[in-house]
């Protein structure tokens, strides 16, 4: 859309009105930029301050004697519940959960999208609609049955462990969370790929079929090489969502050293024993935020596109 101030109006009201107009617009935009940056700025400077400086100084002041100590403490020493070994273990828990969950759900989404656009069958719209609706349910409505099922699987895992000496990952919190995130992430990944493949020329597939290419050959040789953008979008979207999840994490891995990062951070911050070390808390929060922030900085364009696609179903 073009600029709104038309040349005709500029001429009649003179340059000064236009200048004032611009100043007001830039002023407002800058004010809002401050509003959005403030909490991050405060978190960041606080994480480099000493406790003394925090208690006696100004929240917005830059650190007088910057120290990286709180970051080390958050990473390796701070107390999460009763264990005081920092958040590093929980950080790795999240990594171990996120990587397989993202890969599996993305790959399944790609296959589903491929079938739902290029190998349509009667009722494909209904199947898609049912999977799509699943994206929007409040997860509270499946939380309890899933907890029950995961509990049974865990008990079965213990039985297996006793019988065979190996539990095959049954009852392992990370495995559980990967499973949960794959199941409830499928709707979105399928949506992304379906919408992307919708626009992919079907003639190409037909031609390949005539040449005798099979279902998987077409997928591997034709669809996959042309899916890079949507893979990036989906991986980023899933990564952000799963890394940031708190509800499933707290319900199925809410205690002990199996907690993912979000739950651990919440515990660090809400620990009420002893002196609250705000600088360490802020450093921990920054560490929890960094992976998604880095993804956003590196691939912001794809990040926004994913959000839009997830937001605008149609």
């Amino acid at each position: 859309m073009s600029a709104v101030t038309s040349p005709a109006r500029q001429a009649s009201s003179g340059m000064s009105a236009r200048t004032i107009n611009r100043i007001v617009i830039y002023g407002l935009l800058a004010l809002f930029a401050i509003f959005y940056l403030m909490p991050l700025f405060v978190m960041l400077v606080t994480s480099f301050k000493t406790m003394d400086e925090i208690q006696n100084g100004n929240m917005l002041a830059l650190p007088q004697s910057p120290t990286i100590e709180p970051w080390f403490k958050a990473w390796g020493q701070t107390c999460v519940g009763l264990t005081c070994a920092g958040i590093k273990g929980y950080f790795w828990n999240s990594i171990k959960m996120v990587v397989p969950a993202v890969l599996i759900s993305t790959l399944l989404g790609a296959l589903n999208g491929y079938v739902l656009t290029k190998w349509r069958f009667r009722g494909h719209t209904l199947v898609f609609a049912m999977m799509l609706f699943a994206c929007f349910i409040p997860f509270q409505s499946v939380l309890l049955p899933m907890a029950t099922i995961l509990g049974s699987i865990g008990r079965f895992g213990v039985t297996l462990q006793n019988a065979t000496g190996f539990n095959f990952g049954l009852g392992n919190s990370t495995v559980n969370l990967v499973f949960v995130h794959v199941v409830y992430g499928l709707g979105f990944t399928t949506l992304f790929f379906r919408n992307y493949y919708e626009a992919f020329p079907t003639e190409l597939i037909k031609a390949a079929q005539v040449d005798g290419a099979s279902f998987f050959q077409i997928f591997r040789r034709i669809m996959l090489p042309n899916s890079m953008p949507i893979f990036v979008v989906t991986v980023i979207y899933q990564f952000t969502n799963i890394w940031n999840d708190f509800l499933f994490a707290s319900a199925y891995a809410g205690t002990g050293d199996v907690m993912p990062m979000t739950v651990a951070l919440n515990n660090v911050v809400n620990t009420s024993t002893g002196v609250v070390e705000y600088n360490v808390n802020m450093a921990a929060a920054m560490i929890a935020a960094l992976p998604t922030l880095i993804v956003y900085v590196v691939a912001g364009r794809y990040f926004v596109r994913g959000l839009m696609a997830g937001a605008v179903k149609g």
Partner: protein
Amino acid sequence: MSTVAETQIKLTPEHDARPGASVRSRLQDLLPKIVLAPSFAATIVFVYGFILWTIYLSFTNSKTFPSYDITGARAYQRLWRWTFESDPPSSWYTSITNMGIFGFLYIGICLALGLFLAILLDQKIRGEGVLRPIYLYPMALSFIVTGVAWKWFLDPGLGLEQTLHQWGWTSFHFDWIKNKDFVIYTVVIAGVWQASGFIMAMFLAGLRGIDGEIMKAAQIDGATTFQLYRRIVIPLLRPVFLSAFIVLAHLAIKSYDLVVALTSGGPGGSAWLPSNFMYEFTFKRNEMAVGSASAVIMLMTLTAIIVPYLYSELREKPR
């Protein structure tokens, strides 16, 4: 924006009519369905099956552990009674009142602020490439991190109030985060901070999609900037309003983490939303049936919003 639109070019696998049509080619025909089947089955069982299971539980008198004897709608009766128990407020009354306040303000402010910022950014701004990511980055943060950051910022002893005191405005008083009547508004502030940039991006994409010719024509007709936006641009953005509303309503009903991280539930549970109510009653207060009933109510609310929307989006569009 609308990509669900159906391209009805159907690709039917060639059916081989020859007598030798082997098992292999039959399998090739079935393969797409076999590939889709696990995902679809998982959706049926873990989404729809589990929803039915939750509905079932809500009609039992499950406490700490699930019980499977149907005992009628007692959980719903209790929720119904609590709905009107305002003095002293029951947890459920607090939760749904908060949902109303939070939902209304969060959606309203995000829409207004998002549209406002998008219009400002659309005035050929130098440095748009810098500003846009600044407005949008909170969306990449988890609710937990957002909550932690704002908890600090709004804390009377450490944050904004303290800062302004040091700058000499000693009468400034801002303790909403510790005040049971106002704590829900701090959740609104943090929520708006997180989502409004994204809504801005949606509106900006919508604005950029408007045909420049229409704008020019209106300007030639002598429309003022204000008229231009009110009469022409904003009505053209209707689909974006709808999408943004759906996104926000969906986020609002699901909000759980933010309340936990920002307020730990607020003084005496005064910041609870229905999602917090569900979690607390199910896992902490050993009232599983009541928790399930509240989950069912949340689901029904969301369904009432989402299903008509999905239906209109997925419907075969006339072309």
